[in-house]
């Protein structure tokens, strides 16, 4: 294990997550020894459900009896236990470099940046997947995928993922739609896609990308990483805010804008939740100020509840 992986894999996080079972809600591709259900609702022994025919579906799975009775094309889906193909999409744009805890120094301790939090989460999830024999891949992107590793299940893949996450990067502005669209076309088989990002960018593009991934049959989850400062906006005194991605700056008395800021933030979070629900993506808000394992437990517990 490299130095980068050791940094991303916080022992206390792994220790707590290891006690949990990683359960996907029902759509999992790959094999994870009897615990995961395959996202391939193909020719299995146990019928699961009918669904509308989508162009591209295997004509062999069209239920012709239903077509004969109802004059509509449906395909039969079967539940099949399979291994998980987990793809972690980590937002590496400039906005992820924000490191909080400096709003009211010296009281606030310096927290990890959003990217560091995202990397920790991603590495931990990869480790969980790999430890269960699943395949895990990872991609770091901003306006395009900067670095990527395809999902693999070999044990050494974790180090490669950690190295990828810890590698130096030249962060630029984010652009979700081409990234997600590209991934949707390149991911060979259905699996689980977890987007770890602050989602600060073109939200319509995010929705379109996620919708395409969802349409490709991927199980989606969003780990929305936000810094405590971004959520609470506790700044005092004259401050000049300089955009990490937007080429703009604003000198103001932060408290005079706090109400409006929180108002806009709430609207943003509500929109994100609504759009995540639209594409049936699990949404979990992660604060950089909280321990990552707490966030992961919350994420996995919810998925576990949804799976049962």
């Amino acid at each position, binding site marked *: 294990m490299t130095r980068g992986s050791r940094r991303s894999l916080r022992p206390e996080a792994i220790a707590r997550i290891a006690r949990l079972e990683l359960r996907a809600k029902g759509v999992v591709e790959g094999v994870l020894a009897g615990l995961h259900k395959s996202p391939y609702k193909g020719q299995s022994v146990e019928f699961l459900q009918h669904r509308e025919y989508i162009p591209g579906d295997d004509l062999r799975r069209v239920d012709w009896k239903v077509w004969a009775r109802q004059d509509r094309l449906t395909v039969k889906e079967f539940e099949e236990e399979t291994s998980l193909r987990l793809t972690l999409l980590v937002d590496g744009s400039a906005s992820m470099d924000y490191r909080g805890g400096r709003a009211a120094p010296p009281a606030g301790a310096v927290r990890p940046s959003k990217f560091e939090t995202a990397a920790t989460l991603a590495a931990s999830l990869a480790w969980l997947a790999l430890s269960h024999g699943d395949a895990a891949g990872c991609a770091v992107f901003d306006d395009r995928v900067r670095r990527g590793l395809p999902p693999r299940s070999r044990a050494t893949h974790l180090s490669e993922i950690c190295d990828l996450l810890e590698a130096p990067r030249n962060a630029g502005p984010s652009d979700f739609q081409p990234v997600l669209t590209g991934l949707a076309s390149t991911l060979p088989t259905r699996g689980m896609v977890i987007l770890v990002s*602050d989602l600060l960018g073109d939200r319509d593009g995010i929705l379109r990308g996620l919708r395409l991934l969802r349409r490709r049959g991927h199980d989606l989850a969003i780990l929305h990483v936000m810094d405590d400062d971004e959520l609470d906006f506790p700044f005092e005194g004259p401050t*000049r805010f300089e955009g990490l991605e937007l080429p703009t700056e604003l000198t103001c008395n932060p408290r005079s804008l706090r109400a409006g800021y929180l108002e806009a933030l709430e609207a943003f979070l509500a929109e994100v939740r609504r759009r995540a629900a639209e594409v049936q993506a699990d949404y979990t808000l992660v604060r950089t100020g909280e321990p990552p394992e707490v966030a992961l437990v919350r994420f996995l517990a919810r998925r576990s509840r949804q799976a049962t």
Partner: protein
Amino acid sequence: MPSFGFPPLLWWGLPLVAAPLLIHLINLLRHRRVEWAAMEFLLASRKKYRTRAVLRQFLLLALRTLAIAGLVFALAQPRWRSSWAGLFGGGGRHLVLLDDSYSMGDLSPGAGRAIAGVESAYDRGRRVVERIAADLAGAGGSDELAVGLSSELSSGSGPPQLALEWLRIGPGELQQVREAAGRTQPSWTAAGPREPLGFAAAVAAEGDAPRTAWIVSDFRSRDWQADETATAVRQLAAAGWGIRLVDCGLPAPPAGNLAITRLEQVGGVPAVGVVLPVEVEIRNDGTAPARDVPLELREDGAVRSGLRIAEIPAGGSITRRFEVRFGEPGGHVIEARLPADILPADDVSRAVVEVVQAVDVLLVCDDPAASLDHGDALYVSAALAPGAGAPTGLRPRVESPATLARLDLTPFDVIWLLDIQRLEPAVIAALEAHARSGGGVVFFMGPRTRPEVVNQTLYRGGEGLFPMPLAGSVEVLPSPDLPDLVAEDHPVVAVLAGRRNPLLDAVRVDRVLAADRSFDEAGSPGLRRLLSLRTGGPLLVERPYGEGLVAAVLTTAAPEWNNWARGNPAWVVVMHELQNSLGHRRRQAEGLRVGERFMVSLVPGVDEPTVDFILPSDGALVRRGAEAGPDGLRASLRLTTPGAYTARWQRLDGTERERLAAVSLDPTEGQLDRVGRAGLEQTLAGVPFRYDPAEALQPASDSLAGVPLAKPVLLGLLAVLLLEQAVAYSASYHPSPIARRRA
């Protein structure tokens, strides 16, 4: 319109109003930098709340500026005065009568500084003038102000001059008032308040405008306990003036002022080489005795050995006599100087002595040769000029009455007429003119003197030269027990005064020309006895005549009717004292006070019409003589500083004339005791006036300075501060509770 109690505070404090803006700008420069990801929410917030935030910031800035302005405003003691009076042309008239007598130069240490400093009662007075002007300027600018100095208003020559003519006072005129006050200095005069008060009473009222007389003075008891002053104030109040008394004196009674109140030659013959007695009088106006006081003396500017006075009692005076002797003829200046004290002006005094080569004395007798051989002239001239071994400075000259008509009598201080039988009317007229112009005349009686002639030609019912009418020759019967002569209380015979003086006791008077019994000595103005006979009759009398003196000895000079001149030293002494006494008036140098005029009479056809006055500062002023009645022209100079003045002019024959005058201060002005508020209330009982010490001068009344605004301003300031706190909290300039908890 607002006025201010402390306008300078306003001008100094107003720049502080810019402090909130500066702090705001500095804070903008001192902001913290934060690289921020969620700019879109921030920009959205600003877009929504920008107007509100900016308005709130401006409001906060305005409130803070207002708070500081309010504080400065309140500290400057604002007052509100309605400008209605100004609109209706009813602005008041304010006449400041500034006491510039030399006591205002009082440098008492109570003023919080050393003697060598700059603060004096007069300095405080000037500040009071500026303060009054500032009050008026702040009160709407509809009031008029004039400033008069007591010395100028008391000069008595020409129309009174104001130091600042009537001026409508607004903020723009303050500098003019300040400069006018700054140009003035304490004078050397002792000008009192009466003439300035009279001047104010004569200032005409204009409509119903209120008039206020501000009397800015040190209020010395000498001036303000006088009935005349109280009368003048009453007249002023009756003329419709409001009376404001502003005391620039010190709160504590002054202590330790010594003043030279007199310095003069007191006799002697002012001739070259002759010792002259000079007296100096020093008064202690303090409350404690002055001990071991050195007195510096100067002759013509050169320091000579001085005096040291052991003690001068508190409130008392002491006189010391010293002698001077000058080796050159001409005018000589004697100067006495005390160590500088709280009132330096009266610590120096000067006197002028006009010294001649010798003083001519004219002895007139019917037979000069015989008289000089064994008669009256012998004994008188021997007494006045005994010889080279005893220089007296006197130069007797013996003439007969016939020559008097042709003789210029001007050079003779005293003319001695020794048993003259008869004088021609022209001679009598010349003698009378001589006496009127200050000369002295001494008559000795004798066997040739005819009482009826004396009465007819010389006494003339009291109009003539002779001091009393004569009755006739009377024999004085001898007495074995009592002396024939009795010395009266007179400086000439003071040396002989006493219970029994052996020299005087030795004098035997056998015969006199007795005074007419019907003559009323007491009813004759100015008549004084110097010596009396045992019988009660007069022997030696004197009477002023014009500016001079006439003495009459009712017996002979030669030891014919008496034995006085025969070997009795008292004879010499009395003759010298008589000569000095009668001649002193003629030779007495001008003793003038500051504020008076130095007058020189010019005779048309004899004198040039212009006179050069040489000032103590060595400067010179030329004055042309002005008509002064039938006698001729008169050139004069108003004396403004103490010291020695010289008047020089030329006669048409080319000769130069010169007169000296020693100008001194009025010593009464050195009495620094002050009347105080209680004394003024007593003296000015019934007169409405307001009294303020200079350092606590308050505006005249609300009608002058307006309603005090300090309290409402402070309440407004409190409201502004509360509002500021609320807006500051609302604008999030206070630390949030969350941040405090975190801290």
